[in-house]
């Protein structure tokens, strides 16, 4: 219902914010693109020279790249699977009327407030440590040999840690979705003869589909760039077993001082993330319409 005049005014007034955001994105991006075409090593400053696509060729033919790509997808997919299924389960449980509901809900949210480095260290030293960790004690108490999670199942361990952090987020969003479900619909389905399982499949789950979409989209954005948990637990190892793309870019540019190669890796990660985003939007974006 806006008039032409007010529309012009609106455009004029949001333009500073748009320009700021655009600059914020364009400047680092163009710097990175520029660096990715240079032979730029921090150990030999002042020796930068233009080398075309050599950095890209180097990065894409590196066996570590494919390992990291696979790990990134496993990490994102694994965490999404655990948090969505676990989140729906927890949301259904928390939606039941019970004593102390408020406190329980706050406790469930708590892991999300713990910063990634801290929670990863807690998991590494208090739970997964093969000598002093809780899991090692539990295994010994049951007569099994302790399992060194971070050495023998590094990616799985990191998936567990990250899933633990993101489960509260998924639970929270899905719980609010669950609470907005019209009770009369539930009652109607009871009269229509739907049992608990059918009610979940045909009424509750479709109602939550939009929230699930939101959780998948937001979590994918953040999970593609998981870094702190890897740095403080496994350092990407053993070998490249727990290196994802973000960590590989870091290793390239700051551990091997190859800024050019790292920048090329960064640009490749951006392109891959956009491909993932494109398919994600195609697959589930229609859930956000209407």
């Amino acid at each position: 219902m806006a008039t032409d005049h007010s529309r012009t005014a609106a455009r004029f007034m949001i333009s500073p914010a748009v320009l700021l955001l655009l600059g914020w994105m364009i400047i680092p991006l163009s710097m990175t693109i520029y660096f990715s075409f240079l032979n730029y090593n921090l150990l030999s400053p002042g020796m930068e020279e233009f080398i075309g696509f050599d950095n890209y060729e180097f990065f894409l033919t590196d066996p570590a790249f494919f390992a990291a790509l696979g790990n990134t997808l496993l990490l994102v997919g694994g965490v999404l699977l655990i948090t969505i299924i676990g989140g729906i389960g927890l949301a259904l449980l928390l939606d039941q009327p019970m004593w102390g509901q408020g406190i329980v809900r706050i406790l469930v949210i708590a892991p999300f407030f713990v910063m990634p480095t801290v929670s990863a260290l807690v998991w590494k030293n208090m739970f997964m440590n093969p000598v002093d960790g809780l899991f090692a004690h539990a295994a010994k108490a049951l007569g099994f040999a302790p399992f060194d999670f971070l050495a023998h199942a590094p990616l799985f361990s990191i998936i567990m840690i990250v899933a633990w952090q993101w489960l509260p987020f998924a639970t929270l969003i899905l719980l609010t979705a669950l609470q907005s479900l019209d009770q009369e619909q539930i009652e109607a389905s009871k009269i229509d003869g739907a049992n608990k399982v059918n009610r979940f499949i045909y009424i509750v789950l479709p109602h939550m589909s939009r929230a699930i979409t939101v959780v998948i989209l937001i979590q994918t954005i953040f999970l593609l760039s998981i870094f702190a948990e890897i740095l403080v637990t496994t350092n990407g190892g053993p070998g490249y077993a727990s290196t994802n793309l973000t960590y590989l870019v870091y290793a390239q540019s700051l551990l091997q001082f190859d800024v050019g190669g790292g920048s090329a890796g960064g640009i490749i990660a951006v392109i891959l993330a956009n491909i993932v985003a494109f398919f994600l939007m195609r697959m589930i974006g229609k859930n956000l319409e209407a």
Partner: protein
Amino acid sequence: MGSITLANVTKSFGAVNVIPPLNLEINEGEFVVFVGPSGCGKSTLLRLIAGLEDVTSGTISIDGADATAVPPAKRGLAMVFQSYALYPHMSVRKNISFPLKMAGLDQAEIDKKVNGAAEVLNLSDYIDRRPGQLSGGQRQRVAIGRAIVREPEAFLFDEPLSNLDAALRVNMRLEITELHQNLKTTMIYVTHDQVEAMTMADKIVVLRAGFIEQVGSPLELYRSPANLFVAGFIGSPKMNFLTGAAAAKYDATTIGIRPEHVSLSDKEGDWKGVVGVAEHLGSDTFLYVKLEDGTQFTVRAEGEVSFEHGDTVYASAASADRIYRFDDKDIAL
């Protein structure tokens, strides 16, 4: 099939007693309307019959079998909710076929029944749309469609017309009444609107604070209300009540007279007053008269009447047998 009996049914929410012991017989094929002011327990009563709430004590029998502990799905009843409670992510077809699918019917039979219901309710053109794309009246019809495909023992309606505009409400009222005449299935209908109750019911149950005040056909309630509450609730505009000397003349604590049973004169009559507002509807004129003792008195005059604001008028009963007398306990004499 489709008789429902409530015997000594009570319902309490915590310490609050919503339904005191209540007995009611609903016969097969009847259109029964529960009517009463909001908060009188009529919706609770319907939900007890549907099985959405558990009774605190007493028994509910459907077709002679005790159904008190039977889950809602097994009672063979269908319900239409005030908000329609359609499933928003399903098309009209899927909404209507949902109860059949839950009952495990095969697809061919489901299609046949759904198409039949859609035709009866004029929904065929919208069958693949979602509820969000339909108007209020169409949604209402989908909700009714979802109820009729199950061929239930009885239909339960919980204020189904309250979300519709006035014109549509009249239309749907006719459609539901017609549906009842075609299906001849027992229907229980909850409303706070006495016009709906009067126009649709075979039997009206007037409720107040969980108590049944009176049960009867619309005209029985209109002609011989059991007490002051029913007299005031049934009929539109509301019955006029007079107390004090005017009532004592008729040997009663309160007398009531309906607006349509009053005759007006500018010269003489029983009760003198001044015209406040005159609503000219063309076919009728409603006059709100302020009597000398301050009582508001409504008069319905047929056709166009020449009285205006500020005129002094005399009202009297059109005939003496149209005066309702009530004792000091508000019970009709």
